[in-house]
């Protein structure tokens, strides 16, 4: 048999290539939804300037920027890893994109890895941008505990990602969008960003991951202190629970 144009020669490219190309596509499409990205940055920016520079809200400290900026960074992580990702993934499922990717050499762990990596890249860029804006208006953070700050941020992003993928797997895309937005608004109000979070003791860190993350960011960046153990535990629990649930429930269709 002479080898024609379509003579079968199946095979999978290296996983590194596949995941790399998928990350590139995820980022390209995110950049293309530019207005959505700007909008996602708009709320944190507004909170940063509004609550950080005016006395619109009562804060438990006189260092308004020192309180608000770390909280805004935590809010951005949630907005990107949770709200944005839940909505995007929900619609990708309804468009059949996930099904199509499932019928390709990209494996399930490969897709989850690519999505996570793309989210992390976005978070790094957003945190750098908001940190720079904060610096320009007078925020002067401590850099001694930068590593623990990055550590809790990765844990928080992982937990949010897991919850986002879980919601997108079990709900319809419209319901996912509604639920993700509602949770975002609730967390924004009660999560200790613009004013102090309700004092629920240690249980509060487990119920309000945004408050826990914001507090950890403040402890490290404002006070140069270490992250309290209950916060590490709360964020680690969120990451493990939601990632495990997402891995079990994630559907291509």
């Amino acid at each position: 048999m002479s080898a024609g144009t379509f003579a079968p020669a199946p095979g999978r490219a290296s996983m590194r290539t596949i995941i790399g190309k998928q990350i590139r596509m995820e980022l390209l499409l995110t950049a293309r939804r530019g207005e959505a990205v700007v909008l996602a940055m708009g709320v944190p920016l507004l909170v940063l300037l509004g609550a950080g520079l005016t006395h619109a809200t009562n804060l438990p400290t006189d260092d308004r920027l020192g309180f608000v900026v770390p909280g805004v960074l935590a809010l951005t992580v949630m907005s990107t890893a949770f709200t944005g990702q839940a909505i995007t993934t929900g619609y990708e499922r309804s468009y059949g994109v996930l099904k199509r990717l499932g019928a390709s050499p990209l494996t399930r762990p490969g897709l989850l890895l690519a999505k996570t990596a793309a989210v992390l890249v976005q978070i790094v860029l957003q945190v750098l941008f908001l940190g720079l804006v904060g610096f320009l208006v007078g925020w002067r953070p401590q850099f001694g505990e930068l590593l623990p700050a990055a550590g809790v941020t990765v844990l928080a992003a992982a937990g949010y990602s897991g919850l986002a993928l879980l919601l997108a797997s079990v709900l319809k895309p419209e319901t996912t969008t509604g639920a993700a937005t509602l949770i975002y608004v609730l967390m924004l109000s009660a999560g200790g960003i613009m004013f102090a979070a309700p004092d629920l003791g240690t249980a509060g860190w487990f119920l309000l991951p945004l408050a826990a993350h914001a507090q950890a960011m403040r402890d490290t960046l404002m006070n140069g202190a270490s992250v309290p153990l209950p916060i590490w535990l709360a964020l680690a629990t969120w990451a493990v629970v939601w990632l495990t649930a997402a891995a079990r429930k994630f559907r291509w269709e």
Partner: protein
Amino acid sequence: MVGGDVAAVEVRDVVVRYGDTTAVKGVSLSAQRGRVLALLGHNGAGKTSLLQVCEGFRRPDAGTARILGLDPVAEHDALMPRLGIMLQSGGVYPWAAAGEILRLFASFAANPLSVDMLLDRLGLRKVEKTRFRRLSGGEQQRLSLAVALVGRPELVFLDEPTAGMDTEARHTTWQLIEELRADGVSVLLTTHLLDEAERLADDVVIMRSGEVAATGTPAELTAAAGIDLLEVRADPGLDLVGLRARHEVTEKSPGEYSITGALDTRALADVLAWFATADAHVTAVSSRRRTLEDVYLSLTSQHSNTVGVAI
């Protein structure tokens, strides 16, 4: 490994249920390597559900499916690089351009086809930079087909491949599928277009209400149904009583007799013998062979469940 002895598709007693509805009721079929098998049936006949089982998107509620010898669910990761799958619709990022999508899927394969060649062959060159959501229905279908082929698969599943295409695109697609077969690719396609099945398929499986109604090559299916119309020109006004006892016959106009129904060779001989014993002067005989369409319509119509076609 390309080729080998295992069938392209081997489905045994597959049942698919959605709640109380049984969409596929114990279907068995096998598709051989290097051939084109058409799964023919109305919407709701269970074609897509069966395809979903073959693609590993759905676990059958009973029965087994083996694709290239592998379990499509348990061995999903090993199977996918060897398959080309064209979904019925969608499946593409709305904001990605046609060329970007095809290049993404090409980059997933070890030995991809040339993206430029596919864009040219499928008439997608001029929309290469157009985003998916701005493509016409036919262009979206052709892009889906290109995505299914770009990894040089051994076996392709095409779900209603020419739905929404204009005549020209349909013929291009048919030529492409014929070329796939010539190059040794196995094809399983679903369609409700009879001319598509008749032109492309080596084997046809007709599905009705979740069951296999008939299987065979197009020639076997139409031959089994035989001739379904015989027109005989002879003396006008013959007394048809004797013939009517055994066949459906009418004299449409003086001297023009038509005999309808599934006529096999024996029945034909019987009809002509009757004209002979009637001492008629037969001046013309013409027959119409049943097409796949006739077979299909008689098998799938809700009212006629008794059709003499069984292979």
